[in-house]
C-alpha cells in the first residue's frame, strides 16, 4: 500500500488557482523530488501536506487512512489536525530554528511537550526526558554536529542550522519528511553539506519529498521526480528518464533553462 496518496487537491488564493487537480502517490522508503519554476505550486503543495494551508478540494491519505478530506468538515478541525501533522515533518528554506534554544534544545523541545501528554509522564518523567535527550544527541551526531549541540542558532553557519532543523524534524519520527528548498538560503559551499545529509537519509530509506532547484541532486537522489507547471503535475516518472527524455514540451524548456 502507498504510504502517501494525494487525490485531486485544489487550492485557490484570491482568485488565483495555485494547485489544479494534483494527484500522486508514493511508496514507503522512497524519495520524491518536486521540481518546477517559482510559482508553479510546489511549496503550496508541501504546505498543504503539512496542514499549513487548507486545500479547497481533495483528499490526503497516509497508509490508507484518510487524514484530510475537503468534503468532510470533521477532518478540518484544528484539534484533529495537530495530531495528523505528526505524520509529516517539514524542513523550511529559512530553517526557522528557535533562536533562544541551543541546537539540542531545538531538537528536544517538541518531543518533550508531546511526552507531557502521555498518561505516565509524571511517574517516569526523568526516564522519558533522558531518553529524549539521548535520541536528540544521536540525531545531531548523525548530522555531524557532535560538537555543536550546545550552540545557539546565531552561533552556527547556515548549513549547520539547516542540519539542526533536519534533526529537529526527524526527532518526531514522521512517516514522510518534506523539504522546502532546503538549500536555497545557503551559499554553494554550505549547500553540499546539507545535500550530503539528505543523501544519507535517502540511503537509509527515509520517505522524503524534496522541493528543490538543485537539478543534479533531484535526479540523483530521487526514485521519482514530479515536474510541476502552473499548479499542475506536468510530467512524472523515473528521474533518469524524465531528465534524459522529457516527454512534455514544458518540461524540456524548464530543464534546458536549468542546465549549467
Amino acid at each position, binding site marked *: 500500500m502507498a504510504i502517501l496518496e494525494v487525490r485531486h487537491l485544489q487550492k485557490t488564493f484570491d482568485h488565483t488557482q495555485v494547485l489544479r487537480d494534483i494527484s500522486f502517490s508514493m511508496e514507503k522508503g522512497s524519495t520524491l523530488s518536486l521540481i518546477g519554476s517559482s510559482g508553479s505550486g510546489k511549496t503550496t503543495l508541501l504546505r498543504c501536506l*503539512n496542514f499549513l494551508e487548507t486545500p479547497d478540494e481533495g483528499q490526503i491519505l497516509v497508509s490508507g487512512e484518510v487524514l484530510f478530506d475537503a468534503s468532510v468538515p470533521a477532518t478540518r478541525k484544528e484539534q484533529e489536525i*495537530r495530531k495528523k501533522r505528526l505524520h509529516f515533518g517539514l524542513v523550511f528554506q529559512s530553517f526557522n530554528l528557535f533562536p533562544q534554544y541551543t541546537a539540542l534544545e531545538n531538537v528536544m523541545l517538541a518531543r518533550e*511537550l508531546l511526552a507531557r501528554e502521555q498518561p505516565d509522564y509524571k511517574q517516569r518523567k526523568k526516564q522519558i526526558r533522558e531518553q529524549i535527550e539521548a535520541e536528540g544527541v544521536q540525531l545531531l551526531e548523525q548530522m555531524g554536529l557532535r560538537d555543536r549541540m550546545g550552540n545557539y542558532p546565531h552561533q552556527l553557519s547556515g548549513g549547520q542550522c539547516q542540519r539542526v532543523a533536519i534533526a529537529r524534524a526527524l526527532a518526531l519520527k514522521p512517516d514522510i519528511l518534506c523539504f522546502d528548498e532546503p538549500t536555497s538560503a545557503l551559499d554553494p559551499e554550505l549547500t553540499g553539506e546539507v545535500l550530503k545529509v539528505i543523501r544519507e537519509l535517502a540511503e537509509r530509506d527515509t520517505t522524503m519529498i524534496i522541493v528543490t532547484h538543485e537539478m543534479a541532486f533531484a535526479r540523483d537522489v530521487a526514485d521519482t521526480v514530479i515536474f510541476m507547471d502552473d499548479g499542475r503535475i506536468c510530467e512524472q516518472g523515473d528521474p533518469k528518464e524524465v531528465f534524459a527524455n522529457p516527454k512534455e514540451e514544458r518540461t524540456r524548456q524548464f530543464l534546458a533553462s536549468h542546465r549549467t
Partner: protein
Amino acid sequence: MNMAQIWEQMPIVIGALNTGFLQTLKLFFVTLIGAFPLGLLIAFGSMSRFRPLSYLTRVIVWIVRGSPLMIQLLIIYYFPGLVLGNPIWGGGEQGRFLAAATAFIINYACYFSEIYRGGIQGIPRGQEEAGLVLGMTRSQIFLKVKLLQMIKAIVPPMSNEIITLVKDTSLARIIALQEIIWAGQAFMKGSQGISGAIWPLFFTAVYYLVCNGILTILLGRLEKRLGYFR
C-alpha cells in the same frame, strides 16, 4: 535665601520629601504591576480576529493615548462624585491613590499594549509555522517559542516607557496626591515652620534622577542578559 539657611532646613525637607517619594514609588510599582498584564490583554484584544473586539480596543487605545493623562486623572477622580453623585473614591489620601492608580494603569496599559503588539507581530511567521509543524499547540507556541523573543524585542521600548512613568507620577499632584512634588511644594505655602522656600521643589528632581539612574542600570542589565540569543 543663603546656603546656611538651606543647610538648616535640609533635615526637615529631606524627611518630607522622603515621605512623598515613598508615595511616588508606590504609585510607580502599582502602575507597573497592573499595566503589564492589562496591556497584554489589550494587545490580544486589538489583534483579535473578532472584528468588533479589535475595533473597540483600538478606539479605547486611541482615546487613552490621544488625550492628556492629566485630564484622565481629573475625570477619573471627579467624575463619579461630581457628575454621577457617587464619590466612589472617598476624599482621603487612600481614595486619591486608588483613583490615581486606576488612571495610570489604564493609561500605561494602552501604551504597553502597542509595544506588546509590535513585539508579537515582529516575530517572523516561520516561528509559528515551525511550532505548528512540530505538533505544538498555539498556547505552547506562545509560551515556549514566542514569549521570550517578544520580551527581548520589547525591553528597549519598555525601558523608555518605564522611565517616563517615574516622571509622569508627578501628574498625580493635580488631584492632590501627596507624592514628592506635592511634598516639595508644601514648603512654598508653609509647612513645618518653613515657608516661601522654592528650593525643596527644585530638589525633588534629584530623587527622580537617582531613581531613573538605578532603573537605567537594571534595565540595561536585563537587556544584556537577553543578549545570549538573536
